[in-house]
């Protein structure tokens, strides 16, 4: 079996990230699936001054912001749904350490669509006429902002609508349910904007909860929404989205969601969280130990587990997939 693209998490971060880069997370909804393990490794490697492109905030952005690794962010939504405000992100924004440029949840994927198509601009019928258009955290003195979402004249009717600037992040670290070693990926649950992001980003690294044989992709080619030809590397990491959920694989760890967000509300809490859950947790066994093996088994018993059933026969065992 070809293993060319399978690399370790540490290697992926070493190879594809740098200080000051535009870093995008490929995620489901806010408290959905996001490869937060990639963010944990970004912190272990001490990456700084990131420009984060997150369709919605996740615990990853919350953590990176709390740790001071992000100076600019663009989001459609910056909360944690039922878990409330994202305390780490909030603290960074309120203190002025992080400039958060607000968009809407449709504006971000449309900007990714425009990046994927390499359009100079994307028509906007949302996020206009409101302070999302008029206020820019990246250009605070431009008010009402003329450059964030300028107007464009429709040549058919002469009417004006808005224009979004397309996004082309340097790297997208995309969480997927299943990947093969070539870089083909299957997502269970809504794609949210992972399809568009995978085409807009200059480079794509997949972080997969599980690996499958390529025969699985040949059986379900319509499910392979991210094909190998656009993927640089594949990282296998079970529970990559923990404490968030991954439909078919595991539920959210609601207890840790709350505790983590509470920790990120303060400098001290954040330092303790990094010490307890990030520093030294560099391999999968240590990671699963830190979650707690009982917890792992509990979270795995999701009411969505049946979604994985058609694919189980192709799952690769741990010894088959070590990079």
């Amino acid at each position: 079996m070809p293993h060319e693209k399978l690399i370790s998490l540490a290697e992926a971060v070493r190879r594809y990230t740098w200080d000051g880069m535009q870093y995008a997370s490929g995620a489901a909804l806010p408290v959905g699936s996001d490869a937060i393990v990639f963010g944990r490794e970004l912190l272990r490697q001490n990456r700084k001054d990131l420009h984060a492109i997150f369709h919605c905030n996740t615990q990853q952005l919350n953590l990176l912001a709390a740790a001071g690794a992000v100076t600019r962010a663009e989001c459609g939504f910056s909360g944690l749904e039922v878990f409330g405000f994202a305390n780490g992100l909030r603290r960074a924004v309120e203190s002025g350490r992080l400039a958060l440029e607000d968009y809407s949840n449709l504006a971000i994927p449309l900007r990714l669509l425009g990046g994927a198509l390499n359009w100079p601009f994307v028509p906007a019928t949302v996020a206009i006429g409101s302070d999302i258009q008029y206020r820019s955290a990246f250009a605070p003195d431009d008010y009402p902002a003329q450059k964030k979402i300028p107007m464009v004249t429709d040549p058919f009717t002469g009417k004006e609508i808005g224009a979004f600037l397309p996004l082309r992040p340097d790297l997208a670290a995309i969480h997927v349910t299943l990947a093969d070693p070539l870089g083909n990926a299957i997502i269970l649950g809504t794609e949210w904007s992972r399809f568009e992001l995978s085409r807009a980003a200059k480079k794509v690294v997949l972080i997969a909860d599980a690996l499958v044989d390529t025969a699985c992709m040949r059986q379900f080619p319509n499910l392979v929404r991210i094909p190998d030809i656009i993927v640089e590397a594949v990282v296998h990491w079970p529970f990559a989205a923990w404490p968030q959920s991954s439909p078919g694989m595991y539920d959210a760890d609601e207890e840790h969601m709350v505790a983590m967000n509470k920790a990120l509300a303060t400098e001290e809490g954040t330092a303790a969280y990094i010490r307890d859950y990030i520093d030294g947790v560099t391999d999968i066994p240590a990671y699963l130990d830190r979650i707690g093996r009982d917890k792992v088994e509990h979270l795995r018993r999701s009411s969505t587990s049946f979604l994985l059933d058609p694919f189980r026969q192709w799952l690769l065992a741990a010894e088959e997939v070590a990079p």
Partner: protein
Amino acid sequence: MMAIATGREIRDGELAIFGVGLSMLAGFFAQAHHAPNVRTMTEGGVYGATPVGGLPWGIECNRISSNATSFTNAIDALGFLVASGRCDVGIIGAAEVDKFGNVNTTGIWEGPIGPTFRPPKTRLTGAGGANDIACGAKRTIIMVSHERKRFSEKVAYISSPGYLEGGDARSRHGFNGGGPAAIVTTLGILRPHPETREFELASWFSFSNIEEIKANTGWDLKLAAGAHEAPEPTADELAALRRVDETGALRKKG
């Protein structure tokens, strides 16, 4: 009561988009009670799901993933079906709302922001999909707790547009949707004046009254033509609500 009052705004057969929490409770209550053919969706592109084992706590919480018939994506849900003007009704929440139905969920600045944008004193969640719903849905229902600090003459930051400066201000922006049809609060229901688009008190719940609502509203709230007390929940409505909110987690709130 808030969930029932909001649910009453949803008609059978409509395409409706919900958020989480009370908004979803209201939607599924409508489906269980008077709108069995309401077509439900979430902004993540989850279709055909009905709540199992309690309402979901997140739009893509696994609880809603466990019996959906289709998963697509954000451009589909918020773009093709909502921003396009195709969705009949969307329910959104608000931290702060003003007399023209403009919603702030972005931050609290304590006073106007000023010409230079500065970080809010208290950062909230941002617009999310609510802006897209507010721009695109044929009509929106805003659900908000009726407290004076949340009902302002003018919100500090418009996260999701209502009628902007009132009148026909929306028409200048090419939105595909019609704007808010009602603000359903913990105390009653406000509706926009057909011309000025200023929100007026249309009805009050039996446990409240005009004076209490006025006292909890940050602008000089007018009484709409034909304002009246809202009908009490019927036994059927209460039974439907209980069926939807199995665990009772949300009922106590609203």
